[in-house]
């Protein structure tokens, strides 16, 4: 299993430099506040920080105590307080409350706010409004790229998705441009650039501006990475909404991989303690199974375990010297491997992956074997429904399934996801009466949902509609007067540059047509062999080729958007292609086979696996840059309004 890379696959650039850069800058910033200080860290920054600098490094630079930024008064007694936060207004208020409390108590301390990855004017303004602008010093920690794996860089900005695609807030685009600029200064210019989507276009434009301003720096550098592909999440919601069945994606769906590592609770570790496991290419076993369809994984692991046992057994026939060697060199590694392996088997057995719908995942230990079998069926039915939606048949049955799903009160997030999938896949080419049927269904489902999960989700629906994920009415009615005016403004040539997330309002998903055009649903003749996949569809059990990945494949094949005009029109996105002629001839053939894919708004592990597969097939290697790793649940949560 675990397809080896082709012998001619290009080497990946060394991204650990990014970590070193971030660490050095952080240390520099900490040193700017000499002496002992307490560090307040925003919860969202804790895991990324952990990957950059551990506690002992922080202690070395005179960080005394660590606190979490939360809505509680601080107990710190230090004379110097340092805050490491994302540029959010909420955080500013928190800091202001601390400082003002100190002022009331007649206490003077030094305060320093480090914004990561950058500060925003609005934050400074809030500090000013709260009357503490003069009391704190502000700095920026330009830490925007965290290498989670050898081929995966994450900006760890999950809010990018909601901010941009829902609220139309473009502030993070500049951060993206800065990150791309950093990459091109470190790893040379990118001779070929493609992209699709408004955000991709804006990011590219800003990035180019940055390059031009600092021309000369990258001049004459040999490109290390030949292609860059920028992609907006909103041009393919479908892929992100599907249940993941590739091992790594499945682990993410069930346990939530956080910043490249996952916490396995007692039910998986079969001990009292939960265990934190780092998931990346350095873990050899994991590396072999991460991209596999889950149905293959269990067999593979059993085989692996047998092999390990055999290796253990080798000890017997050895003389003392060999034994010594074996113990000192191999045993340690073997033991480690064995431990992780048994853990993985537990994941599979305990959870019976096939089986438990992620919904009930919280409660694995209590899962009785009968229940397991039952849920096994559930998961298959769920997958079946998803596939039916993707292929566009048995809509009535699917909607019934969704309704029942709600009635069973399984999980609001899961139900929402299915509703969105229904909405997107069914939008477009369907005859009128059919559409109204769908609308009716959806409305009924929505009402069900509201009655089941509370009226605050009315806002959730409004959000989903705005983001183009769930449109429960006929298109004509969806747009209020203002919204249509806005969308007109957007399409207006003069305002062409004024890009706006509202455009998604006017957006039809056209999924069915695109699917046909790009052949996303492979023809089924016989059983799809998941062990030896023949195309990227394997990441969805052979039922669907991820749209995002297909587009990338097509563009790379053509080296342009030529012939894809119809698809682009259907996607209702503007595409972009940019070739830097001056850099082109300098690029080695090896670098030309390295492709950086930038997902604006997040990418899923399924997409990563699919592209890794494509890379192996075509002799490319893909590098992924995402604003955050996402999955269907995260997307839905980002859109949800929950009572605070």
């Amino acid at each position, binding site marked *: 299993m675990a397809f080896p890379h082709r012998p001619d696959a290009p080497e990946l650039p060394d991204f650990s430099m990014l970590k070193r850069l971030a660490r050095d800058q952080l240390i520099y910033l900490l040193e700017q506040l000499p002496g002992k200080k307490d560090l307040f860290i925003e919860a969202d920054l804790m895991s990324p920080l952990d990957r950059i600098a551990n506690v002992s490094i922080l202690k070395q630079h005179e960080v005394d105590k660590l606190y979490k930024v939360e809505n509680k008064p601080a107990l710190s007694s230090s004379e110097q307080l340092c805050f490491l936060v994302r540029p959010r207004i909420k955080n500013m208020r928190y800091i202001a409350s601390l400082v003002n409390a100190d002022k009331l108590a007649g206490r003077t301390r030094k305060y320093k706010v480090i914004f990561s990855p950058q500060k925003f004017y609005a934050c400074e303004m809030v500090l000013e409004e709260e009357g503490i602008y003069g009391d704190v010093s502000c700095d920026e920690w330009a830490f925007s790229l965290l290498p989670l794996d050898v081929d995966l860089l994450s900006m760890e900005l999950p809010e990018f998705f909601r*901010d941009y695609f829902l609220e139309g807030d*473009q502030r993070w685009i500049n951060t993206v441009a800065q990150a791309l600029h950093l990459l091109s200064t470190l790893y040379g210019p990118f001779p070929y650039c493609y992209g699709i989507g408004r955000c991709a276009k804006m990011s590219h434009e800003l990035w180019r*501006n940055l390059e031009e301003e600092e021309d000369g720096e990258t001049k004459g550098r040999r490109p290390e990475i030949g292609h860059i592909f920028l992609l907006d999440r909103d041009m393919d919601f479908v892929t992100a909404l599907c249940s993941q069945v590739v091992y790594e994606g499945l682990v993410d769906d069930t346990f939530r991989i956080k910043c490249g590592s996952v916490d396995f609770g007692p039910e998986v570790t079969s001990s009292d303690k939960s265990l934190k496991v780092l998931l990346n290419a350095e873990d050899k076993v994991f590396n072999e199974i991460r991209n596999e369809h889950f149905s293959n994984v269990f067999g593979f692991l059993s085989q692996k375990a047998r092999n390990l046992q055999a290796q253990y057994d080798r000890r017997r026939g050895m003389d003392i010297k060999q034994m010594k060697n074996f113990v000192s060199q191999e045993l340690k590694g073997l033991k480690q491997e064995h431990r992780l392996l048994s853990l993985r088997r537990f994941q599979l057995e305990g959870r019976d992956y096939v089986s438990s719908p992620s919904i009930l995942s919280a409660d694995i230990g209590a899962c009785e074997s009968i229940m397991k079998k039952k849920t096994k069926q559930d998961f298959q039915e769920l997958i079946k429904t998803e596939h039916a939606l993707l292929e566009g048949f048995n809509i009535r049955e699917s909607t019934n399934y969704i309704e029942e799903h709600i*009635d069973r009160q399984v999980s609001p997030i899961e139900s929402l996801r299915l509703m969105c999938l229904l909405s997107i896949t069914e939008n477009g080419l369907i005859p009128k009466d059919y559409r109204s049927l769908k609308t009716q269904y959806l409305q009924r489902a929505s009402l069900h949902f509201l*009655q*089941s999960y509370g009226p605050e989700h009315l806002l959730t629906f409004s959000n989903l509609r705005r983001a183009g994920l769930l449109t429960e*009415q006929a298109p004509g009615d969806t747009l209020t*007067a*203002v919204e249509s005016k806005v969308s007109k403004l957007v399409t207006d040539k003069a305002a062409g540059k004024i890009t*706006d997330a509202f455009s998604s309002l006017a957006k039809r998903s056209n999924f069915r047509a695109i699917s046909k055009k790009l052949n996303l649903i492979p023809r089924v003749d016989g059983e799809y062999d998941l062990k030896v996949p023949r195309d990227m569809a394997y990441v969805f059990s052979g039922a669907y080729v991820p749209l995002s990945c297909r587009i990338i494949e097509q563009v790379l094949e053509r080296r342009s958007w030529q012939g894809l005009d119809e698809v682009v029109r259907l996607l209702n996105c503007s595409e972009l292609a940019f070739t830097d002629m001056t850099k082109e001839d300098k690029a080695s053939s090896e670098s030309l086979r390295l492709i950086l894919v930038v997902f604006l708004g997040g990418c899923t592990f399924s997409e990563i696996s699919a592209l890794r597969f494509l890379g192996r097939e075509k002799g490319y290697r893909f590098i992924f840059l995402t604003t955050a790793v996402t999955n269907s649940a995260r997307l839905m949560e980002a859109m949800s309004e929950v009572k605070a």
Partner: protein
Amino acid sequence: MRLTSARLCVGRKYELYSMDWDLQEELRDCLVAAASYGGPIALLRNPWKKEKAASIRPVLEIYSASGMPLASMLWKSGPVVSLGWSAEEELLCVQEDGVVLVYGLHGDFRRHFSMGNEVLQNRVLDARIFHTEFGSGVAILTGAHRFTLSANVGDLKLRRMPEVPGLQSAPSCWTTLCQDRVAHVLLAVGPDLYLLDHAACSAVTLPGLAPGVSSFLQMAVSFTYRHLALFTDTGYIWMGTASLKEKLCEFNCNIRAPPKQMVWCSRPRSKERAVVVAWERRLMVVGDAPESIQYPWRAAKDSYLVPELDGVRIFSRSTHEFLHEVPVASEEIFKIASMAPGALLLEAQKEYEKESQKADEYLREIQELGQLTQAVQQCIEAAGHEHWPDMQKSLLRAASFGKCFLDRFPPDSFVRMCQDLRVLNAVRDYHIGIPLTYSQYKQLTIQVLLDRLVLRRLYPLAIQICEYLRLPEVQGVSRILAHWACYKVQQKDVSDEDVARAINQKLGDTPGVSYSDIAARAYGCGRTELAIKLLEYEPRSGEQVPLLLKMKRSKLALSKAIESGDTDLVFTVLLHLKNELNRGDFFMTLRNQPMALSLYRQFCKHQELETLKDLYNQDDNHQELGSFHIRASYAAEERIEGRVAALQTAADAFYKAKNEFAAKATEDQMRLLRLQRRLEDELGGQFLDLSLHDTVTTLILGGQNKRAEQLARDFRIPDKRLWWLKLTALAHLEDWEELEKFSKSKKSPIGYLPFVEICMKQHNKYEAKKYASRVGPEQKVKALLLVGDVAQAADVAIEHRNEAEMSLVLSHCTGATDGATADKIQRARAQAQKK
């Protein structure tokens, strides 16, 4: 012309230009100021001296060093005491009232500043402009015999120097010194000398001063502030260090008349010391030698001395000359009968050109001494110090000739010298009139020279030089073009369109040119329209914003900020707009800028909720308005009445937005809230804020079946869901009896499989089996398997002849107990296949 005397070898003098500036008046009748480094000359016919015809307005004239007129203007301000040039080549005119007027090279008025009240009251008696490493300073002697000075006119800080005790009359002479980065004043009163620093006045004496001095008539400090010379009433000249600690030499010239000017003539790091002293009709060079050089100078009368880094410029009405100490290299080569390697090389080259074999002899001689490298270097260096191109050429030719016989002579020094000389010759040209020497040029640097060319509006020459020296565009050509453009926008007689077009044609997309800077200049000249046109060419939209804001084009600034993609910039403009416009206009502006609107909304969501509401209202965005009130109904309002009211507003908004679904849902919620309130009152417990589903569930769990049914009817909960709900709730209560009753109340709309499932979930196999029998045929197998009745499941599957069901059962057959069942299925399968 070479000047030598018995022991003094001061230097040589050559003519820079013959002046044809047609002066109406004698130089001595004018206030004269000439800037060093070959700078311009300013003349102000001085009518105030003669104390007559004050009614005649004097003329201020500015010439280049070659006598080309640069500016001429009538002097309309008050009487001027002193003129001087700053290091930036700005003309400082010190008026009697202590006001200093600053003019540009072309007579354009720049600014003015005052030297303070004390100066204004006591009038200015005398003033000097001096240069320090910080910039140019002004020192003033007032009518009250006090000194006020500012060390840097660019950053004006006035300093009043301490009083000299017992000073009754003006000092006979004074000068500014600069030591340890601080400016001092040295003044002479009778036989006494005083040094003023900012704290104290101290009397000083000159070491080794000849006796009999009753007064000092003139003093001169060298260009670098190292040396000082004093001229006494006995015709004696003392020369020493500026620290007054050491005498270097002295000279007695026996002329007792006070000299008009006295200036040091020395080059940096040279051991020779010489001072040039000028009287009305006499010019004398004195130094460390018993004899002086009397200038055989027909035109010695009415001349003016300009101290330079490495010599003295002397100009009169007819000529402009440069007097300097001969540089070592030149002296070595040109000394009569010199045997220095450079001299021999020069000879060798000359002979070579004559095709004489002597060339070889000379060359051999140098080579035998192993001095060829030195010879080449000497020739190159000497070439730099020559003024005339012919001389430069012959020296360079010699150097190049010598180079041929050297294996490894690095070419840079030769190449650089050729380039430098070309630049120097170009700027020394009569039309340009900047007579820089090589040393001055090196001290000044090419950047400053380019600035000076720009200042003289000699843009083409500056650009040619940049291109010739291959300077990076940002430092060179683009910078000059930008300056040119800034000058161009001041041409008021040309239309905005033409200026903008001309600028864009020349500048194009040259890197490093900031159109916004040029536009700022245009705006500074009051040409707002032109500024806007120029900003259009600025490729970085972010750069356009600050100026647009300044010009009050806030709306344009907003769209530019949006274009730049910099949200911080957008935000800045937004706040600007918010203060500038009234609320309505502000909202209208936002309405047309969706990006800014979303940004502002985001901010309001966190900071100004009321504004957010107003924004939606303004836009008639009923949908969002509805959402806003929904949020308020649970986030902001506490009382139930308030919440219902908020929901009512929301529902109205949704109706206006034609979102009937949302409106209906909201109304339902209002109904539910009221009902929940009633339930709480009647039954106690917590109902508020439960969803409808949870409300019904809670009622069932509390045994309120009637009410639950009522509620379900009221809210038209579909049957299916109600069944699911009841089923779950009853199973949770483990009220198996009620569950059975319920199951029999009518035919289940959801079938009976869920009953089996839910019983198994509660581990009640007994109850589960009851329902398994009632499950419809399609799901029968599943149900039987759930309750663990594999055998019966197998029977049903076989009966159905359903392949999928059979394999499902088969997969549940484990261990020995089910062996028989498995066989049975296998047999049935085989049979089915046979058919």
